[in-house]
């Protein structure tokens, strides 16, 4: 366990000590909430004079969110998790470039610790970042309205869900980085994966407004699982197990599969 912990703390030390990176980490959620929250606010299209009032549509399409930012914030958390996972995985390529990886490979440490330290550290980073994002979302005008029954257990479960999402994706990207050694190729792959993962999910829009073929895709996207379950926690509070248990289970399976792949690839994958 020693190397896993010390390598994780190395990652976190590097993160805290890099003022620019830390600043971006803190400021980015603000941008995301303000820009996406304003640009994609489709609730503005709902006419206010329809029978039953706009709250009927908000209830049936937007899980009863009071406004778009309330709906968007849990999705933004998931997307932020995706990006955080991606960058942490990519940092393996820097370790390789700067020769540090060869030192790790020669050391008598479990191979998986090289990847798991990236995974664990990105989980910690994301929890810090998501707390800030939640706070900002609440503070902006016309911002996040939490369910009145939202409590600390909901918050902890939300962090857990986010961590599960990151564990899966961070593992996925790390495994890709181990096999793909060229920066340019890696960039192309991550760009190819990111946008579809982001938009073919329920992170920003309810699946109810999507065509049926897209709905099918969306339902298999881990981003959707995380976004949906975190949304239930934020908008309904007091842990509605029945509404989130399926998503949690899928995320769990996603993690288990990815971790198994990490162990296999790390065992044989570091060789040139």
């Amino acid at each position, binding site marked *: 366990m020693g190397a896993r912990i*010390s390598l994780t703390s190395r990652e976190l030390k*590097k993160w805290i000590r890099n003022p620019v990176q830390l600043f971006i980490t803190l400021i980015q959620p603000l941008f995301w909430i303000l820009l996406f929250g304003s640009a994609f606010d489709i609730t503005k299209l709902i006419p206010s004079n329809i029978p039953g009032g706009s709250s009927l549509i908000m209830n049936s399409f937007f899980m009863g969110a009071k406004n778009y930012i309330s709906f968007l914030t849990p999705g933004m958390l998931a997307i932020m998790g995706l990006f955080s996972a991606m960058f942490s995985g990519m940092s393996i390529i820097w370790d390789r470039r700067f020769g540090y990886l060869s030192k790790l490979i020669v050391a008598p440490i479990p191979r998986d610790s090289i990847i798991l330290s990236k995974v664990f550290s990105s989980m910690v980073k994301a929890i810090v970042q998501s707390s800030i994002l939640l706070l900002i979302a609440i503070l902006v005008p016309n911002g996040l309205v939490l369910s009145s029954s939202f409590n600390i257990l909901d918050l902890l479960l939300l962090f857990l869900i986010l961590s599960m999402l990151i564990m899966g994706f961070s593992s996925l990207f790390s495994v890709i980085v181990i096999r793909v050694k060229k920066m340019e190729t890696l960039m192309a792959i991550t760009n190819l994966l990111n946008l579809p993962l982001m938009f073919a999910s329920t992170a920003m829009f309810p699946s109810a407004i999507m065509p049926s073929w897209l709905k099918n895709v969306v339902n298999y996207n881990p981003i959707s699982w995380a976004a949906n379950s975190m949304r239930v926690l934020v908008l309904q509070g007091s842990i509605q197990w029945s509404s989130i248990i399926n998503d949690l289970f899928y995320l769990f399976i996603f993690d288990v599969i990815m971790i198994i792949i990490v162990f296999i690839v790390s065992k044989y994958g570091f060789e040139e």
Partner: protein
Amino acid sequence: MDIIHVENLVKIYKGGIRAVDSINLNIKKGEIYGFLGPNGAGKTTTVKMLTTMIKPTSGNAIINGLDVIKDQAKVRKMIGLVPQDLSVDDDLKGIENLELQASFYGIPKDDARERANELLKLVDLYEAKDRYVSTYSGGMRKRLDLITGLIHNPEILFLDEPTLGLDVQTRAKMWDYISKLRKEYGITIFLTTHYLEEADSLCDRIGIIDHGKIVVEGSPSELKAKVGFDVVDIVVDNPELFKNILNDVSDISMMDNKTIRFKVPESEVYLPKLFQKIYENRLKIQRIRVEKPSLDSVFIKYTGKEMREHESEEEIMRTMRAIRRAR
């Protein structure tokens, strides 16, 4: 027993490149063994195989009685590696780099700190230990890199091009530190280099490697002796008489009308006898110059090419690497 024993080691990369072509090595405990050869000769590939980074295609490599493939985990515990590219973390302090490395070997924190301080003092970095490595000079980083490879007190230290890219003075200082390490800890050192002077001044034994094969092996002086002769240039007051004295030397030539050049296998042994004869014949020596064969001449003899050419190639490679990194 030899601490490193290698038999018919072969590495063929994908695409059929024979990077290492059936090499044999026997290195004794406490020895500094140098692998000398141009770029792409197979030096780094050999180090990678011996340090368990890559698996050999065929052959055996036994490190301190342990097989590098079967006993990978145990081998890793007893070796230290300082890779060719700098492998210290810029964003950490000097001491943190050492402590992190120590954690890989399960060394308790207090012991690690004690050992780290000792090593830092050895390479004159103790004062700078709490600074971030990003503020270190190139030579300081290399020194830190050197001691991170030693934090767990390994039996064998592998140094892959330990002075690559350092200026002449810093390089000479690195040699001092490396010799000091061997003296202090009696550690076995396997190093690769393409600097002839480095191999000459540091190593007990040298293997010259080219195209994946060891072409010749021996101590620096043995190797030089294989090229043959020391060249002696001498100016005396009576050249004609002097030539008669030199009756046991076959290869005599006049450089100009005063300087006589001749070649002898071992000038250390021959010259005292010659001086005796010169004294007996009442000749006077005006000038004398002895040139020992260099590793350069050894290299040319066994590989048929100059080492120097490759150095400039290496410079180009290094610049290219630097550019790639900067991007």
